């Protein structure tokens, strides 16, 4: 009898505005997995993320967390939005933005400063605690979002193309930061991305979705050693093989 | 669930309000010096149209408003171009502009009364003062905000200041200058009506006051409604013109 997975998609279908977005999705995610989801536009990867975030309910089937159906957002599942400029409160300082998560969780006032300081320290924003988001660079704003998610002490991190709008150097730095944060906290990660190399670099599993109808078409294990390294991991022949496999998968899909 | 079309949804509230007022007035058999039923208002309004009085008043108000808009607008345009083109001029004029700007145009009603007596000149003078400032300020920032790249083109082509203004700066700033005039037009109408309500014995504002003083609430409310329609129609026309000439891209939302 296999162990109950942390997250289960059980014959999940989603129809939005009359159009089928996801059809019969079956997926199991175990605790500690770093699952990267790739696929061409319109394949439903963001929809899957929103289902896990409790922002959307399936038209058919069930999405379960620790055996129970997800019907609304959970405190132990943190969501990180793609457009950081719009997901941060411009009128609150960096510390204030992190505090929002704690306020929502009804964390007692006395405990908040310590938890905020810890979250900011983890992402390296301690020196910027009193700055406003519009005084920060894109990379720092995204780190602020990460800090807000970490303040929830989540078991699961949902990340929706978090590094898409950043330049290549910042993206690589943040990839490594996420890896170290996740390995320290043991969180399970559901990471949506367009970038195939990023998916292979970060994940221990890469799920490929195809559109029309949205379905899981590929589920590949990534056996590269951890901790990952931007140079050595990317030079590993297994990395190249996996990248080629995914590349072909996408190319066939768009054909 | 049937979706109610937007037009009906928008009309539902006012129509309901008018219907309730009418029914209430009829139920109470309203005969009053202070209030009138919607039906009576319509009748009074139709009467004012029939004998031309409302049209004459409208012409007077609009003449004053547009006269003042033209005078104040052109002065504001020239001033705005000067201040927008020259940082020196802008900085030197800062105190004078900031000192004169906050004077409420209504405060000048007695001044204009003293100088011109009653009539068109007095009202046009005040409307010009009121319309001058938004055009000045917004033209200044429109001209000052012309893309530096375009100014470089003017320099490279060795255009003189007049040619540069007419061929490069004005066309580039035109969408925002239009918005300035749009704002000023609304202000012009408002100030014209205000002057007529306060002092000047002509136009829609004055006729409305006259109706109130002669205990004709139905006529007064008819004028009020008509003034509202005028303002709304003016707004609509200018917005339409802006869309037509400048397209959606230039449509800036006027600050509330």
């Amino acid at each position, binding site marked *: 009898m296999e162990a109950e997975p942390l997250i289960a998609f059980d014959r999940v279908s989603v129809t939005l505005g009359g159009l089928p977005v996801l059809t019969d999705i079956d997926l199991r995610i175990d605790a500690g997995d770093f699952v990267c989801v790739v696929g061409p536009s319109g394949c439903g990867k963001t929809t899957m993320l929103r289902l896990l975030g409790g922002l959307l309910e399936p038209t058919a089937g069930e999405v379960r967390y620790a055996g129970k159906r997800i019907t609304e957002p959970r405190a132990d599942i943190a969501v990180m939005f793609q457009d950081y400029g719009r997901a941060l409160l411009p009128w609150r300082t960096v510390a204030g933005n992190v505090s929002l998560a704690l306020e929502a969780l009804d964390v007692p006032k006395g405990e908040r400063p310590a938890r905020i300081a810890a979250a900011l320290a983890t992402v390296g924003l301690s020196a910027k605690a009193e700055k406003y988001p519009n005084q920060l660079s894109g990379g720092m704003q995204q780190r602020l979002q990460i800090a807000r998610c970490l303040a929830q002490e989540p078991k699961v991190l949902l990340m929706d193309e978090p590094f898409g709008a950043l330049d290549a150097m910042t993206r690589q730095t943040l990839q490594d930061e996420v890896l170290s944060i996740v390995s320290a906290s043991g969180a399970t990660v559901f990471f949506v991305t367009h970038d195939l190399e990023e998916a292979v670099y970060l994940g221990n599993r890469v799920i490929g979705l195809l559109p029309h109808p949205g379905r899981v078409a590929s589920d590949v294990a990534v056996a590269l050693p951890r901790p990952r390294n931007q140079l050595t991991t990317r030079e590993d022949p297994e990395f190249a093989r996996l990248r080629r496999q995914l590349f072909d998968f996408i190319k066939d899909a768009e054909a | 669930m049937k979706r109610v079309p937007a037009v009906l949804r928008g009309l539902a509230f006012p129509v309901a309000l008018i219907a309730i007022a009418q029914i209430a007035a009829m139920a109470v058999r309203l005969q009053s010096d202070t209030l009138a039923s919607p039906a009576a208002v319509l009748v009074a309004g139709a009467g004012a149209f029939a004998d031309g009085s409302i049209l004459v008043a409208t012409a007077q108000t609009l003449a004053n408003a547009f006269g003042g808009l033209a005078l104040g607008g052109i002065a504001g345009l020239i001033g705005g171009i000067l201040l927008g083109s020259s940082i020196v001029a802008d900085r030197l004029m800062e105190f004078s502009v900031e000192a004169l700007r906050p004077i*409420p145009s209504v405060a000048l009603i007695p001044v204009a009364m003293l100088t011109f007596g009653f009539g068109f000149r007095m009202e046009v003078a005040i409307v010009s003062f009121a319309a001058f400032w938004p055009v000045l300020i917004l033209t200044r920032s429109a001209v000052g905000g012309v893309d530096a790249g375009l100014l470089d083109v003017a320099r490279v082509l060795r255009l003189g200041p007049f040619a540069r203004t007419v061929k490069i700066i004005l066309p580039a700033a035109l969408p925002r200058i239009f918005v300035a005039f749009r704002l000023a037009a609304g202000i012009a109408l408002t100030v014209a009506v205000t002057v007529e309500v306060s002092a000047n014995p002509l136009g829609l504002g004055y006729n409305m006051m006259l109706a109130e003083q002669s205990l004709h609430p139905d006529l007064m409310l008819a004028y009020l409604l008509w003034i509202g329609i005028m303002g709304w129609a003016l707004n609509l026309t200018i917005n339409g013109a802006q869309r037509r000439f400048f397209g959606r891209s230039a449509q800036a939302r006027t600050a509330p």
Partner: protein
Amino acid sequence: MRISWRLGSFAVGAVFIAVWQLLANAHLISPVYLPGPDRTWGALVRGFASGVFPDQVWNTVQRMFVGWLLASLAGIAIGACIGLSRPARAYLGPTLEFLRPLPASAVVPLGIVLFGLSDNMVLSVIAFGALWPTLLATVHGFAAVEPCLYEVSRALGMSRLAVIWKIALPSSLPDILSGMRLSLTVSLILAVVGEMLASRPGLGSGILIAARTFHAPDLYAGVVLLGALGYITAQGLFAVEARLLRWRVHHR
């Protein structure tokens, strides 16, 4: 650098005042209509010394602020309710858009009809006129809250009250303050108009009487005071706005 430009602009202002003085002295325009800055200043000093101006200023300021505060509170409350509710916006929006360009002074006769020529009339007209800019701005502000922030609040499991207080209200604050600024301008104008029409004591009626009795220096002194009032209140509100909206990036 900044200071020398400031001084330069004061100097230019002084030049204009000197020109005014010269025009007045030369009697190109009759001194009945155009008193020089010297006589205007004299009237200002006299008015303050005799206690006339302080009284008038106090009356006008009082009306203006009471009307404005009432209007702002009502405008924010009603505007928030409408702005947060899509059906309310759909049904009331067109009516509000029709009322937006209505000149505030057009309701003065209605005010007279309802309240007579009294202080109440002036106050109600001020409050009614000043209501609309704040209300409309508040509706706009609440309707334009960044939708992604609503998602964030759902993901964090925030209560409806918390969403309004911590997300919608701060997000709308720039629009609300901008509307309140406009409302303040309207309340000054309507205070003056109301005082003129109802002959209630204040700066408005003061300058009207001065004009009617051909006391031009008193008239001009009153106008200067009204300008100063407009300036001070606008600057005050700007300062409050700057403090509350420190987080904003300012573009020229």
